[in-house]
């Protein structure tokens, strides 16, 4: 209330009267601008580029935004399409999985069916074989009955052969193996002798010790059928007691291949100077000019035969002038 009163008093404040002549002075002092206001105030028009710069800037920004919007819209559309295609692919994938599962089940069923077919086929084959066997069994029974009738009517059954009789007829397989091993040993000895001769002017070795380098092991100098001789553990401890074979052509020439080089007194195997090995069988060893030859007995010289008899103690020895020096019947076999 007081404020309103105060405001009323303030609004009704006294106004001083201007002195006389003030208005005239003020009107006389009026000095308006001579040039038109517009020409003074308005500046010169700016160049068109400057005037259009805001519009161009806005247009540029708008254009850039439009381009960005278009690009984003395009990428969004593309992403949507990819999403759709992926979704359809996923649906197809599910369908393919289901179809694959069905296919696998069908395949398993088909395999079982194939197995069953094979089993059925085998069963049929077995049945056919059983039928065939049954026929054969029946035929065999018939034949057995006929055979029994024949045997009962003609002669008794022969006695079965025993093992001893069989080995006596065929021979001991152990002896045969030892004989073959003996032949093999003589072959290796002959080969070693020929190698040595090649290196020594085609002259065969004088004794066993000279071909130790050519022989692989002292084992081959002992016949497997000779149970009285031991194999030398090495060449340094080698002696005459470790040899089963006779060396019959010392210092011989390789140009005489038919001369007997080695001989096994146990198996009567003979190795010639050409490296070949022969079983004596019906053949005999004959001596001529101090050398031993393998000859047919029908062609044997009586003198040679006599000499051989003497050598092996079948006849008393004489002292003829042409007795070979390198054959000593008293010398044990295998002495080099």
């Amino acid at each position, binding site marked *: 209330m*007081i404020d309103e009163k105060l405001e009323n*008093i303030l609004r009704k404040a006294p*106004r001083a009267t*201007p*002195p006389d002549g003030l208005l005239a002075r*003020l009107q006389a002092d*009026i000095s308006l601008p001579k040039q038109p*206001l517009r020409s*003074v105030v308005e500046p010169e028009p700016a160049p068109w580029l400057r005037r259009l710069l805001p519009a161009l800037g806005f247009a540029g920004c708008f254009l850039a935004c439009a381009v960005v919007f278009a690009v984003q819209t395009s990428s969004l559309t593309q992403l949507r399409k990819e999403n759709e295609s992926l979704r359809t692919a996923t649906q197809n994938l599910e369908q393919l999985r289901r179809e694959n599962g069905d296919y696998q089940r069908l395949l398993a069923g088909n395999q079982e069916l194939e197995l069953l077919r094979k089993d059925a086929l085998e069963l049929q084959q077995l049945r056919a074989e059983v039928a065939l066997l049954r026929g054969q069994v029946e035929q065999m029974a018939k034949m057995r009955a006929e055979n029994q009738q024949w045997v009962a009517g003609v002669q008794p059954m022969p006695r079965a052969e025993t093992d001893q009789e069989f080995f006596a007829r065929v021979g001991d397989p152990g002896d045969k193996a030892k004989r073959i091993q003996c032949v093999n040993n003589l072959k290796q000895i002959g080969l070693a002798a020929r190698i040595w001769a090649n290196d020594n002017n085609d002259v065969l070795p004088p004794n066993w010790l000279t071909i130790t380098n050519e022989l692989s092991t002292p084992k081959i100098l002992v016949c497997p059928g000779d149970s009285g001789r031991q194999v030398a553990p090495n060449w340094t401890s080698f002696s005459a007691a470790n040899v089963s074979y006779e060396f019959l052509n010392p210092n011989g020439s390789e140009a005489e291949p038919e001369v007997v080089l080695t001989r096994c007194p146990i198996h009567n195997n003979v190795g010639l100077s050409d490296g070949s090995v022969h079983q004596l069988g019906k053949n005999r060893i004959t001596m001529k000019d101090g050398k031993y030859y393998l000859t047919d007995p029908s062609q044997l010289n009586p003198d040679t035969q006599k000499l051989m008899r003497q050598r092996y103690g079948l006849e008393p020895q004489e002292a003829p002038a042409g007795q070979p020096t390198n054959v000593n019947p008293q010398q044990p076999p295998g002495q080099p």
Partner: protein
Amino acid sequence: MCDNAQALCEHARQGDLSAASELVAHFYERIFAYFRRLAGNDEDAADLTQKTFFKVWVSLASYQNRSSFSTWLHGIAHHVYVDWRRKKNLTEAQSDEWWEACAAEGPSPSEDASEREAAKYIYSLVERLEDGVRQTVHLHYYQGLSIRETAEALNIATSTVKYRLREALDFLRVKTLEPQFRKT
């Protein structure tokens, strides 16, 4: 009137002397009364009025119709008064005696003698206000500008104008209720 002042101003800007004279005749009393209250004598008030209108004619080209012509004119008057006070190095308001004399010279708005005394006392209290508040009271109450026009003339915010008016009314209310002041 406002539209008429705007039209006259526009004609004056075009160089119409009669329009400018009409503007002067219309506003010079208010401006003179404004300066008369603030300056305290007729001579200074007349000089300040002349300076104000001189600046108006010089600055008329820069007037851009953003406020009313009256507001713009009072803004120029306010700056002219501030410059004048700075030049004269005046920091204090006018004395009560002057205001009482000034008020006695003017026509009385009220017939009641007691009210005239109270109004005289209130006017003298207004001159005791702080300068900014006093300027605000002068423009708003004495010159009849609205709060917005006062703010534009003083180049301050409307909220500041309201605050200053409230401050002035509080001061006046307090002072009018104090018995010792009434006695003095």
